[in-house]
């Protein structure tokens, strides 16, 4: 079966049904591993044990941007290649991305209270992530405005691509402006500056959250395909009755 066969919704759903239990198991293992690594990781010399919020906050923040990037790729799939499942992928990713952004904001805020002395500060990184969260919500609202999934799919694809301009702003905001949020420590020129003992658990937690996203996303795509089939059947039935 070539990759192109996955564009067929029936084949795609069949593949998801086969793969989903394994993905779910892999997610659970990755979380168990990651949380064990988090337990073993050393305390920070300044922050103490509070630094371990990082192992939840940072993967969520990474995923919030990664999901919008994935939605942008899906948007290109809708507009340029007219891929049948691209708008399904985009629609299902939006609530998950919003949830990751929300968790990043909340865990960051809870981390900021003991560390910075405040739950919130209007610096570049926090403001741009908040704007990203609002754009996620706007996109979800847009998806729900119109009944016909194909039409709203193209409109939402355009909005996703326009919003993608925010991603470089978020990533480089800590470099471009004087911010309270700390600068990049992992993905930066010159390599990461985090010690191995913290970097490895962080990588595992990031892997765990990514697997969680993939599992939930594939399940959501399967549900959305089923939902559209139900809608088509109901429309056909209504037409026959008329």
């Amino acid at each position, binding site marked *: 079966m070539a990759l192109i066969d996955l564009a067929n919704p029936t084949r795609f759903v069949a593949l998801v049904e086969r793969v989903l239990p394994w993905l779910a198991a892999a997610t659970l293992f990755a979380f168990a591993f990651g949380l064990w690594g988090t337990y073993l990781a050393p305390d920070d010399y300044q922050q103490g044990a509070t630094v371990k919020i990082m192992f939840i906050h940072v993967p969520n923040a990474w995923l919030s941007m990664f999901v919008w990037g994935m939605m942008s790729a899906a948007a290109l799939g809708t507009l340029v290649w007219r891929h049948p499942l691209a708008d399904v992928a985009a629609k299902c990713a939006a609530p998950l991305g919003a949830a990751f952004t929300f968790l990043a904001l909340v865990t960051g805020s809870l981390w900021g209270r003991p560390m910075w002395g405040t739950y919130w500060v209007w610096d570049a990184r926090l403001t741009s992530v908040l704007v990203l969260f609002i754009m996620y919500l706007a996109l979800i609202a847009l998806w729900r405005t119109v009944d016909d999934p194909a039409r*709203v799919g193209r409109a939402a694809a355009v909005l996703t691509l326009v919003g993608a301009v925010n991603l470089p702003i978020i990533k480089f905001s800590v470099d471009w402006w004087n911010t309270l949020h700390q600068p990049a420590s992992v993905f930066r020129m010159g390599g990461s500056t985090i010690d191995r003992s913290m970097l490895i658990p962080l990588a595992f937690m990031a892997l765990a959250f990514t697997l969680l996203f993939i599992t939930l996303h594939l399940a959501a795509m399967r549900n959305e395909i089923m939902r559209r089939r139900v809608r088509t059947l109901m429309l056909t039935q209504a037409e026959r009755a008329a």
Partner: protein
Amino acid sequence: MTALSALFARDARISIRIGGGAIMGVLFFLTVVTLVPFAVGPDLALLRRIGPAILWIGALLSSLLALDRLFANDHEDGSLDLILMARPPLELVIVTKALAHWITTGLPLVVASPILGLFLNLEPNALAATGLTLLIGTPALTFIGVVGAALATALRRGGLLLPVLVLPLTVPVLIFGVAATNAAVVGGGRFDTPLTILCALTLMSGVIGPFAAAATLRYGME
């Protein structure tokens, strides 16, 4: 007369004649600027400090409200379909319509801002700085708003959808506009950086906005 200049003249003429554009926008601007002192109190020093921000938010909200007129009238009487089928590229057509819209609704806001700034006890240099940054920034608001207007027209949904879609995208314009104004008021050379970034935002949105709106109108209309 070329097609685009004819379209520009038509849009400008309709906008001025139908009314509800310039006058309503300025009236709403006046209302917002009047409401804020009721809420924060008449402390003149405080009003002078937040004056540029109030003017910017008022201009932003007024341009938001006028945006759905951009394509709605044409969509209702069918001329939008003709425009979509016409020879000039859709992106250029949208730039023309956006410019006509800005001149008839955005420019009056810019002209009104120094007068309204007097209500907020702004100094003359603050009035001038606010006017200049609004002059540079309101086209950006229009170009970004064009995307939301196209979405609302293509999907035929009004209500709060348009502001919710457009406002997060206008946040950088607001930030740099107020930063440039405050830098000019405080004095010193820091005025250049936010102002040039504001110019860059206007130019960038002048390209991205019409392309996105054209894609929406092309693929989103049924």
